[in-house]
Structures are given as C-alpha cells and as structure tokens.
C-alpha cells in the first residue's frame, strides 16, 4: 500500500522552512484524451475570422500530426466566450460552473508538451518522462512524504468514462520506486479496493477470529526465527482489517447531505465523474496525499458525433463541469482548499485546424502538443490569475511558455519540496520527477 505505515514526512531535509510549502495534498483531474482549449478557455477571434481557410504554411512545414493529412483548414470555435468574475477570466459557454469559480482559479493557457500521442503524453504528464518505467508524481510523493494518515494509502486513483486512460496503469506506476508506492486504484462497485470484501458467507466476526488465529501463529513462529518482516506482515493484516471497515464507509456517498450531493450532481451508488469528485474530497479529508482522477472521452477528433466538438464535447462538459467546480467550492468551504492543490487539464491541446479525417463532415481537432490550457487552484496558487498566451490562431505559445517539468517543479515547490534535490538513486543515477529541467513559475504563486 502506498506509503502506509509511514506516519509523517520521511524526508524532512527536502522541506525548507519559510514562506513556501503550504500545500499538503494534490487532487488532479486529468481529462484523458486532451480537452480542446480553443473551445473551452482560449477564445480566438482570428480563428473564427479565418474559419475554413487553409492553415498558413509556416505552421505546417516541419509539423507531424497524428491524423491530419494534406493542408488542413482552420476551425473557429462554434462556442461563445465571455469574461467572468472580477478577474475577467475568459471561459466558454460550455463551462458555466467553472465560470462561477473564475476568481478562484489560475488559468494557464501556455502549457506545452513534447508528445502528440495519448499514451506517451499521459505518461509524460504523470511521470515527467514520455517513456514507461518512471514513477508517477503520486508515487514520488508517497515515497517522499508518505501518507497523512497511516491507515490510508498515500496515492489513490479513480477512473471514469468508458475506458482506461491510454497510458493504462503506467499513469499511476511506481516505476523504479518500491512498488508499494504505486497508486491504489479505487474500483467502482462493491469493492472500492480490489479484494476488499470478505468472501461470501464470511462475516466480519468470523474474519476477526481467523485473523486472531493467524496473528497468534505468526507471532509464535516469529519468536523462533526473529525476522522483523513477520512483525510487519502481522501489522499489514491488521491494517487490511481496518481498511475493510473504513473504505466501504468512505465510498458510501449516501451519508452525504443532499445539498452536497446536489452541489456535485452525484447520485449515491451511481458511478460517475461527479461521484469520483465527491469521493476525492472524502479521501482528501481522510489523509490521502495524492488523488488522481482520469476521465476518458476528451479526444475530440470529429470522426463522428461520438467524438466531435459539436455533439460530444458539450456532453463531456456537462458530465464534468459541475462536479469539477463543486469540488473546488466544497474544498474551500471545509477549509481544505488552502492546503490542497486542485488541478484540471489533459495531456495535450488540440489543433486550431479541423481534422476532417477521411473527409469527415463532423467538426473536430487533432492532437496538438504545442499549447494547452490547464487550471489550478488552492495550495498557494494565485487566485483569478490568467497566465500565458497563445498566438492569434492558438497554434503556438506567444507569452510565458510553461513546460510539463515547470508544472511539476511548481507543484513540488508548493508542497515544500525542492524539485532538484528530490532524487532517487536507480541504476547508478539520481532520478528526479523533473528529469533534468523544470523551473518554478513564481507568477503562479500567491
């Protein structure tokens, strides 16, 4: 179990006293597939003006696309944008709930990545490296900081949407860190953690008696061989027993008052992104360090109504907008927001051009690594900030480019960790989440 048993900060040298390091935990809402910034957060009047025109050659000469062939045409957003709140954040009509919390979030419109396929881009976002085999951020924190509660995992993962994220379990892998730091995937259905329930016909009291016998026998044998691992194993069985009680309660949303359920749009017993958001808050309250949600279905290519920006994208937004904003509001009203980094985003952006795969008449955009939007809140992030700009077409970053490593470095900073000192020796080399780069974006910090 990720970080279980480690009660407090294990690697205190990494923590610097001083003004930074307010954040204690992270909740990361990953919209898997790559949400379209140009239809959600980044209005481009020029794009609308040149809608249907060929994309300028200067952008295409050295470009590689996943699906676009030939010279593509520009695609203006069919959605209207407005400025919201005192901060005047630009947000599209597709995200009315996010618009209401505009003054609480920092919107970064200048994040870029190096990867233009889902799996490597997601793994890059999660682990700081596009290849498989590195630890994900949650695992790094599990290893470095441990759990806030010895009875809870440090790193929990929840999935929604039809499929797994493309990167699969590599998105929450512990990589070369000891494997107990891998993300614990919470399942839908009766067992929120795999194998949590006793087998049919085995009552809790019966299980207790079985464990008591087991404990006695293990203890008895330990006295002859003296292997400390045995003592640890006895403890793990006891912890498992406590988790059996704890987790079903935690994931049972019916104990939430109806106004909270309504705030999220969650229905107890129904698996949804909204339910996952509410559960994320409950996990945060009970001491989980890093909570990551993956929501599948943002890959708006426009090959048909199931993945276009006219029919499918609004549905995705309806499914997720209210709950994302509700999570922020809920965290704040419980005083959790100030030490929780809440982050929303995908693995890459989408092209300003219409993909038109095989002559499709549905509107859609291809993968675009050069610019994407994310928003962050809480944990020391500046409220109501608009950071970074893309060019007139939304193709390249125009101002304040921010790399994935910068994002990680900044998040670690907020968690009180110097990203350059936060290393793990593996195969003779010191590895870091930020690999060999990453700079702290101080503008984002309150």
């Amino acid at each position, binding site marked *: 179990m990720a970080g279980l048993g480690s009660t407090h900060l294990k690697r205190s040298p990494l923590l610097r006293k001083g003004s930074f390091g307010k954040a204690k935990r992270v909740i990361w809402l990953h919209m898997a597939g790559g949400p379209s910034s140009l239809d959600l957060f980044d209005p481009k009047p020029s794009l609308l003006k040149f809608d249907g025109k060929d994309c300028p050659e200067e952008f295409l000469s050295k470009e590689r696309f996943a699906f676009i062939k030939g010279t593509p045409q520009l695609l203006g957003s069919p959605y209207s944008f407005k400025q919201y709140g005192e901060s005047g954040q630009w947000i599209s009509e597709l995200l009315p709930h996010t618009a209401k919390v505009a003054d609480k979030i920092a919107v970064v419109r200048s994040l870029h990545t190096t990867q233009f396929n889902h799996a490597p881009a997601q793994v890059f976002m999660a682990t700081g490296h596009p290849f*498989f*085999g590195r630890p994900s951020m949650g695992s790094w924190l599990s290893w470095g900081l441990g759990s806030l509660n010895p009875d809870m995992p440090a790193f929990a993962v929840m999935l929604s949407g039809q499929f*797994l994220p493309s990167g699969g379990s590599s998105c929450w892998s512990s990589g070369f860190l000891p*494997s*107990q730091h891998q993300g614990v995937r919470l399942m839908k259905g009766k067992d929120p953690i*795999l194998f949590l329930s006793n087998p049919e016909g085995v009552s809790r009291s019966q299980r207790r008696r079985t464990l008591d016998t087991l404990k006695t026998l293990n203890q*008895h044998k330990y006295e*002859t061989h003296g292997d400390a691992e045995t003592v640890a*194993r006895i403890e793990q069985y006891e912890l498992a027993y406590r988790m059996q009680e704890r987790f079903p309660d935690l994931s049972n949303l019916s104990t939430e008052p109806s106004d909270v359920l309504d705030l999220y749009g969650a229905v107890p017993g129904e698996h949804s992104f909204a339910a996952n958001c509410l559960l994320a808050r409950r996990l945060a309250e009970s001491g989980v360090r890093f909570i990551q949600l993956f929501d599948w279905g943002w890959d708006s290519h426009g090959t048909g109504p199931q993945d276009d920006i006219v029919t499918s994208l609004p549905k995705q937004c309806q499914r997720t907008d209210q709950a994302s904003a509700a999570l922020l509001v809920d965290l704040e009203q419980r005083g959790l927001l100030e030490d929780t980094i809440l982050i929303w985003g995908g693995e890459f952006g989408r092209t300003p051009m219409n993909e038109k795969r095989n002559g499709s008449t549905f509107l859609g955009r291809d993968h675009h690594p050069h610019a994407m939007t994310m928003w962050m809140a809480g944990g020391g992030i500046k409220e109501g900030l608009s950071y970074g700009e893309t060019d007139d077409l939304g193709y390249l970053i125009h101002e304040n480019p921010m790399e994935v490593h910068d994002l990680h470095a900044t998040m670690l900073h907020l968690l009180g960790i110097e990203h350059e000192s936060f290393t793990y020796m593996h*195969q003779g080399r010191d590895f870091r989440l930020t690999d060999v780069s990453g700079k702290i974006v101080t503008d984002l910090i309150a």
Partner: protein
Amino acid sequence: MFGFLLLAMQNQSTLDFYQDIEPILRKNCFECHGIVKQKGGFRIDIRATAMAGSDFGESPVIIPGNADESDLYWAISSTDLDERMPPEEKGPLQDYEISRIKDWINQGALWPDDGKPPTWPSEHWAYQMPKWPRIPQLESDSFSRNTIDQFVFSKLTQEGFYPSAQADFQTLARRTALDITGLPPSSYEVGNLLEKGTEVAWQRWLDILFDSLHYGENQALSWLDLSRYADSNGFEVDHNRSMSPWRDWVIDAFNQNMPFDEFTAQQLAGDLMESPSLSQIVATGFHRNTMTNTEGGVDDEEYRVSAVVDRVNTTASVWLGTTMSCVQCHDHKYDPLTSNDYYSMYALFNDGQDGGTSQGPKIDVLGEAEAEDNRSIQEKVASLQSKYESLKSSTKWSAPETLWVDESKPPRGHVEGDWTFLPPSPSTPVHQGEGVRKQVGDKGSFIQHFFNEAIDGPVNHGDDSIYAWIYLSPEDLPSSIMLQIHSDDWEHRAYWGEDTFSFGVNGTPSRFRQGDLPKKGEWVRLDIPLEVVGIAPEARINGIAFSQMGGTVYWDDAGILLGEPQVSAFRTKIAQLEKGLHQPLSSMIVSKVSEPRMTHVLEKGSFLSPGKRIAPGVPKVFNKDVKGSPRNRLEFSKWLTHPKNPLTSRVIMNRLWEQVFGVGLVATSEDFGTRGEVPSHPELLDWLALEFQRQGWNLKAMHRLMIDSATYRQTSSVRPEVILVDPNNRLLSWFPRVRLKAEVIRDQALAVSGLLVGKIGGPSVFPYQPKGIDNSTYAGDRWKVSPGEDRYRRGIYTFWRRTSPYPMFQIFDAPSREISCARRTRSNTPLQALALLNDPVFVEAAKSLGALMQSLQSDDDRNRITFGFRRCTSRGPDETELKELLTLLESDGWTAVATVLLNLDETVVRG
C-alpha cells in the same frame, strides 16, 4: 523476543560515515570531485584522496578532529559566494548537513578504510578480468561442504562469528523445492528425505528437483522479467500478441540445461547461425519483446528506433550489468561510456526487419507432439481424400436446386443495397417468378447488393454449392462479377471475368476465379462449390453478396445446390478429421534486413536528429582484453561470453546468487558500474564467474553448487549477536528468509489445495480476475476467462497484459514488463493481505484445502489439521499451533483453518 533490534537502531551517538556522511557527499560533491572529474585536483569519494591535499595546498582537505582547520568544512560553510562549495548554481548545503560534517570531522572523521586505492573509471573493479583467487582455508574446518563455504565462512569467522547450524531436512526439502521448481514438495517427498536423512538421499533429492520440468518454468520467471516478455504490444492500443512459443523455448532451454553461452547466442543471433533451426529462430524472440505502438498517427521509424534503443539498454543490463540508457543522450557522467559507445552497440541491433508499429516478422511454430499428431491426421485425410475424389468423379449426380432468395422469398436478415424487384417487360428479362433485380455499375464502378445475418441460412452438407441466376445485358457488359458468401466472415469470394476486385487474395478462397464472364444476353446459372470458397462442411451460411464491376446485370433467384449425399458424407468426415489438426502458434522473431542500415549518433537521443555515422562495435572499456570488435549480433554474442569479457559471467553468477540467497554479492545486481555497490565477497564472485566458465557455462551445475553448500543449508533464524554488526546479513551468518514471488505464491496455493494443473507450455491463459480490470481502450482483446483446467495453470502462463497486469501479481510486486526488470522489490502491504484473504483464486484454494483436510481418513481432527499444515509448511504443527487451529475449527470450520494456513507468514515465505 527481539528487543535488541530496536537497540541496534537507536545506538548512534557518534556519526556513522556510510549512513550520515557519505550520502551528503555523494549527493553534493561526487559529480565534480569523484571518479570522473576531479575539479581543483580534489577527489572526495574515497578515503585515500579525501584525506590528502588539493590544488590549493598540501594541507589535507579533511583534518580528523579539527573541522575548523579542514578545507572541507571551510569550503561548505563559507559565506563568500565565490568560495563556497557547492558552487552557487547548485546551492549551499542544508544547515544540518554542514553541522553534521563538522561534528563528524571533530569526532575524528572516522571513515572505515575500505582499503581501496584511488581507482579511475577504467580501473573500476568490474572492468578488470576476474582472477582465480586463492581459496581460503579455515583452520579445522568442520562447517564447509564446498568451495563457496570456504569463502563465506572464512570471512564470517574473520568477523568473529561461526555459521548457523544446519536446518532440518523438512525445512531444506521445502526450501530447495521452492527454490528450484517454484512448487512446494509433497508430504511424501519431505517425509522420505527426513526419514533417510543421508547424504545419498539429499543428493538424490537434488537430482529429482533439477531434473523436474518445473525447474525450467521457475528459472524462466526471472528471465521473462529481464526480457520484458508480455502477451500484448504495450502503449495505448495494447493488442494481444503471440509470443508463447518463445516463452516455451526459454522454459525448454533451461530444462535442457543449455549452456549459457549458447543460450545467449541463440537469443541474440539465432537467425545469423549457419542454417538455423526453427528453434534457433524462435529464440531470437528475446529482442522482439520490445513494445510496438499501433496508435493512430504513430511514426513507424520513431518506435522502431525506440525498440532498438530498448534492445541496447536491455542487453547491457542483462549481460553486462551496465546502465546504458543515460548514454543514449549524452556521455555517461559516472561510467566511462560515451555516446559513440552507445551507438556502436546500437548499430549491432539496428539490422532487424521489424518496424515500430507492426508485429512482423513472425514464424509459425508447432510443438513436436502436435506435429506428430498432425502427421497422423494428415495421413488419414490423404487416404480418405483419394477415395473421396474417385467416388466424386464416378458418381452421376444432378444437384437439385433449393431456392433461398427470390422476390417471393426475400432474404430474412440484414439487407443492404437496392432490393427492388422489377416486373418483366420487353426490356427486362426475368428468369423465374414475377420479378428481377437490375443492377447498374455506372461508368465501370463497383456496385453490390447483399444480405447477411440471415436467420434461415442453409448448412453445408459437405459437397453443396451456391447458385445464382444472372443475365448480362449485351449492350453494357461488366468487367467482372462476383458472388461472396458469408459464414463466420465475408472471406469467401468467387468471381468471373477480370481480376478487378481488391478484396481478399487472388487464387485463394478469399478471391477465387471461377471462369470467364458468362454468355451475354441469356440466363446463366453461376455455381460456386462451397469447398472452393473455403466453407467447411457443417458450417452455416448466412449471407450472399452480389457484386459487379460496371455493366448492367439482371440478378434473379439464388439458392443452394445439394451435393450427392454419399459424397457429402465423405467430405464431412474429412472435415471432421481436419478439425483435429493443431494450429501452429506464431511467434515474433528477429530477421535481418537485406540492405544494411546506416547507423548515426542520434543527437540527444532523438531519431529526428541523426549525427555522424558510426560502425558496429562495443564500448572500449569492456573490450580492453579482446582482440577485434564484434561487427554483427552473432560476433557480439560470442564477445559477451568470451573468456576475456570481464562482466558477463560475473553478472550472471551474481544474479543466480541473488535468486538463491535473496541479495546478490553485488547488491545492485543491475548495476556493476562505478555507482553500483562493490561486492560483499569479491573473491567469491570471481571464483564463481571463472568456475562457471570452466564448467562450460553450466547453469544447473552452478545452481546446484550454491544449493549444495553449507551456507545454503543453514537455519534461517536471525542471529541476535550478528545483527548488530551485520544488520543486512551480508555475511550470510544465517539463511535469509525471503517472501515468495507473486507467481509462486499463487502456484503454491493451487498446489497445496490440489487444484494446480501442471501442464507445461502452450498459449497464455486467462484465469479469473475481477471485472473492470482489463478495460482496454479497444474492444476485441478483452479478458475472457479460460474454460476448464486452464484456470488452474501455473502463473507463468497467465496472460500478461502490459497496460493492466493480472492484479494479484501486481500487488505482489510483479513488474508490468514494459521494459526490462532486473530485480523485483519485495514489499509487504495490506493490499497483499487482502488479496491472499479474498482474491477468488485464494478463496477457492482455501475451500479446496479445507475439503481435503476434512475428507482425510482419520478419526482425529488433529491429524487432519496436521495434514493441511504439512502441505503448506512442510512441517507438522506444534502443540500451541494445533490448539489454536482446533479452536478455530470449532468456531469457524475447515475453510477458515485453510485460510489461516494459506496466509501464514511461513507459507508465503521461503525460510
């Protein structure tokens, strides 16, 4: 009780160099003042130079007992930013680090002398040839059984300790069985060894274990981790792949005790051997275990390059214990390896036909027994076939038409295209009934109407045909016409006229030419014998497609022509026999491109930035003593196992040692470089490496030597008096208890509960796993639980899906096999407890073991419990244990007792 453990941890009033100081120096100083660089003429990673002077003077950098006079303390505590170390861009040391170093110096700068003279990268121990060491002789040695013991025990006694006593034979029976075969011994086997208790019985026992075919399965487990074997491609579109013939090759190679040099050569270069056998070609699958990416828009070259890169990294790690991956982008910071070294090795592996997005080349593989089966089936078929043909030619038969589709009998199923029937007229010919379909292919275009999913489709009796009546309009002829039959799929096509259709493969049942265009201007019946288009006897037909390329064609009634019953029966019999034929399994292989590829250094590792050209070769630092440099994979494989290669035999022996003793002699078994750990018993490692070669790279012999040692036969109880000085048991004063591997835990539970099916080899299987685990993005390759015995096969045969590994394995530290894994961690977590208690596999095992105990012929529950206890631990319970279990039996029954037994620490640990 073990209170001394706590004492050991708390007793630290003085600073310990390796625990408190070295990590600080390593993190902050070694990069510039270490083995590779010595800025300011100063090196601080070894004692000899750290205590000497620097460019700034002869005064020692560290003066024991006097921090204030020591340059080291002065440099790290200076407030002058130009003078302070580490330099400004790296930032100062933390306050606690500075004060710790100060205290340490003032305490006398105790730096346990490792006796190491200053070494330089090329002089690193692992790059020097192993030398036969002097074998230590203990005075009045009553402990040693073989040479290994002489090395281990001489070091142990030098530290003032004696070895532990020998474990009893029931412990040894279980220990050896799990170590050698990965399965627990039977109670009979344990009893037999214990009862006899002689050297002869012991040696006989080892014979049995090493001769067991389960030995190969057990040895293959770690080799599959190293070779990143999986049954899926990886990346987003994690489709299934067929590699099980390669996996079976590995099992078989271990079972045959193939010499390791041969084992190496076949896997790295089997295809380049002289007239390679099928088995040698299959062996090359080792390096086809790289991932392939079939995601849309993926650049084939990008992923081909990344597969070659993986081959270099994996080869370096598996055989040379060397981390090459850094050098892909830049010269190594700590080891004497350059980008040139990297790409010269890359050039060796840059010769395969395989791309980054597809699975070819592959080869079809059939096992010996299956091939034999097939031969006998084919003989029978051949004799029936000739009888069938003579019967068919001698039988007079005019097949009756059975109408299936007409305007009066529209197809009952899914229809597409134009299904309007026109009434007859002077310009509209009709064959029968009231109407006909007219189909026009404008300007030579393809046109088709079809139906499928018919609910009333006929079954092929054996020799049936499909017919359709057509009329070609003389004024507007098509270039070709085609009838296509749907059974399980549409791959059954017959055409007349030109070869204009692009579907299927011409000349096969998927596109078979039946003849020229039929006569124009009259009604003609098209017949297709179902045999010709590959519809087997007893197959149901559920659709027909009527196609033409251009022209105007009238299509009328269609149906089935029944074959002569005797002939049909004959054909059916042949088909039934043929169903018994074993299908070969395909396996991915390495096959050389005909035109050699040029290799370039890739700047910063990017395939888009090729730099200067580079020739195949090996890193110079490993090649000091071998003449010439390998130019292809075959020569390279010989170089790896050349007597002058300093690394391979050490690395392999160290890994075997790790398997047997829990930790390698070099604890970082994946890294023999300058940042790796130095060996705990360097002479022993050298001796093993040379003995391994002397014995002809004989793995079983070396494995047996380790297991036959007194070191191995010690008891596994922690030694209170030794743990204080040797907390990690590197001296091996007791035998280390080790938690079993994921697969072995599952295999053992199935074995002791009587569920295990010990069948060896074959395609990977899908045992039960909870729903929702294997929810891949793409349909089609879902986890379908295997029927019958395949659910109870050994874990090595469980289908390995990279993006969603079998959960119980993942929980018990199995890697995802995306990249090579040299060493699994051994964690101890509550999720493991939950899996052993509640995973349906273990629940079923507990029920089954409970039932076995219950059904034992005995009138005493004590015997029944003892029986189950022995199955799990190889020993009988003592009175305390019996009493506890009897109490539980009374309250909760046999399954609860079995659950305890399967979950015992002793059961999941090899002690």
